């Protein structure tokens, strides 16, 4: 219980843990889909505070980690070109491509900029009409409305020197792919709260029904995660498998209708390859026909990409919840945040980075005593 006093409300945390403990009789494997939740869990030792019967399996919900290597290499190639201003969220800077990353492209003189909002990139395009401004539009359903609005505005305002390199991914098809996998051990899901703030909860009843799994919409703060786990365990113990909203203060069942209407206009569903996992049917969004002129992949002819993934990195298995980060032989040795072999080691939502940041010393001690 060494972490409990770090909770903002230790008494409430204690109460939730007692209720989880009292309810748990079986052995249950619960996947938290979102990498932000993974970080919160590892940082606060939530997995270690839970009863022995409950295992948390870390899911693939780290957008920069699953962005396909080929697209990262394309981004790096475009970012290095003269005349281009390449804009990205900060999370992407150190994600390894085949031979480079955006941070090093910047250090070598490429005009790489970090923006807070994609609208900042559009404003850069308006301020620099003689330059091509490219925004790296990645992320789950939470981020997609921002990128959609930016492309919509680019078209409305006639900003032709702006384009989007798109790699949006979707949570529900990933949940289905995880359940379809022959190696799947997952018995319940904590669904990503802010994805549902946008999309609502309507996509989950058919999944809960088809795969007989509880799906509990959960927030990001440590107490939110404990509450999500508590509700999930109650369902599992009672043999129920229902969608449930444990984060109602930020998630309405109908989601955000205005954002969803914009998403339907700007994007089409497409098959998407997830780095380390493979192709998942219907698991991404691409620009719809109407906005295709803003697609950076079409605008920049980037040929001759030969991708080369690290031969020893096991981030794909980490992303699928098949192994824990420290079960990879390279963890903390060849692979560290300073010299990452996989994206999961640098992203603020990557499971390897979470274990390295918060568990490294503990794991080394356990190794020394083994």
């Amino acid at each position: 219980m060494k972490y409990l006093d770090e909770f903002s409300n230790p008494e409430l945390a204690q109460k939730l843990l007692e209720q989880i403990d009292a309810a748990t009789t079986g052995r249950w494997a619960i996947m938290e889909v979102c990498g932000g939740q993974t970080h919160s869990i590892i940082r606060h030792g939530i997995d270690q505070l839970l009863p022995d019967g409950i295992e948390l399996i870390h899911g693939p919900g780290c957008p920069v980690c699953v962005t396909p290597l080929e697209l990262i290499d394309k981004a790096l190639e475009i970012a290095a070109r003269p005349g281009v201003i390449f804009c990205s969220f900060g999370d992407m800077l150190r994600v390894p491509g085949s031979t480079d990353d955006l941070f090093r492209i910047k250090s070598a003189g490429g005009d790489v900029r970090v923006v807070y909002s994609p609208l900042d990139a559009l404003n850069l395009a308006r301020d620099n009409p003689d330059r091509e401004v490219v925004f790296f539009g990645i992320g789950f359903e939470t981020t997609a409305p921002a990128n959609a609005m930016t492309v919509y505005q680019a078209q409305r305002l006639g900003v032709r020197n702006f384009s989007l390199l798109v790699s949006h991914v979707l949570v529900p098809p990933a949940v289905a792919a995880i359940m379809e996998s022959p190696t799947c051990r997952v018995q319940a899901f904590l669904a990503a709260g802010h994805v549902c703030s946008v999309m609502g909860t309507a996509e989950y009843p058919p999944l809960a029904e088809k795969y007989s799994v509880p799906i509990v919409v959960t927030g990001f703060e440590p107490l939110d995660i404990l509450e999500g786990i508590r509700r999930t365990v109650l369902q599992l113990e009672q043999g129920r498998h229902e969608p449930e909203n444990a984060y109602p203060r930020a998630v309405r069942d109908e989601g955000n209708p205005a954002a969803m209407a914009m998403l339907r206009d700007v994007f089409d569903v497409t098959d998407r390859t997830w780095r380390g996992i493979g192709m998942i049917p219907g698991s991404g969004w691409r620009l719809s026909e109407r906005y295709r002129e803003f697609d950076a992949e079409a605008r920049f002819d980037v040929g001759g990409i030969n991708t080369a993934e690290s031969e020893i990195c096991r981030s794909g298995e980490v992303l699928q919840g098949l192994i824990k980060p420290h079960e990879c032989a390279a963890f903390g040795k060849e692979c560290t945040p300073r010299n990452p072999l996989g994206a999961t080691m640098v992203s603020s939502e990557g499971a390897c980075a979470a274990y390295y940041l918060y568990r490294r010393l503990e794991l080394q001690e356990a190794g020394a005593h083994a």
Partner: protein
Amino acid sequence: MCLAVPGRVLALSEKDGTTMAEVDFGGVRKDVCCQYVPDVRTGDYVMVHVGFAIQMLDEESALRTLEEFEHLGVLEEEFGDQFALAAQQAGVEAPAAAAGNGTRGAGR
């Protein structure tokens, strides 16, 4: 990257045909697009992700979450200098300062 941070709307304005707001996140102020929360009024709390309000929030939960995020250092991660953070992680100097290194406001 799927984190949304609660903030309080200080002022609303119209820019390029969209509703923009100046939003306060526990002392950090940003321009935020409010086009997806059409009912928003000055003084309301909104959940903001990459410069876009994606949902309204009641004051009590917003303040509690903000306090929690400040306690956890989330606000620094969200609004800090990303090149400096990346340089620290890489164990190298940050690239020479250039326009856009920081977190420029979304408005114009």
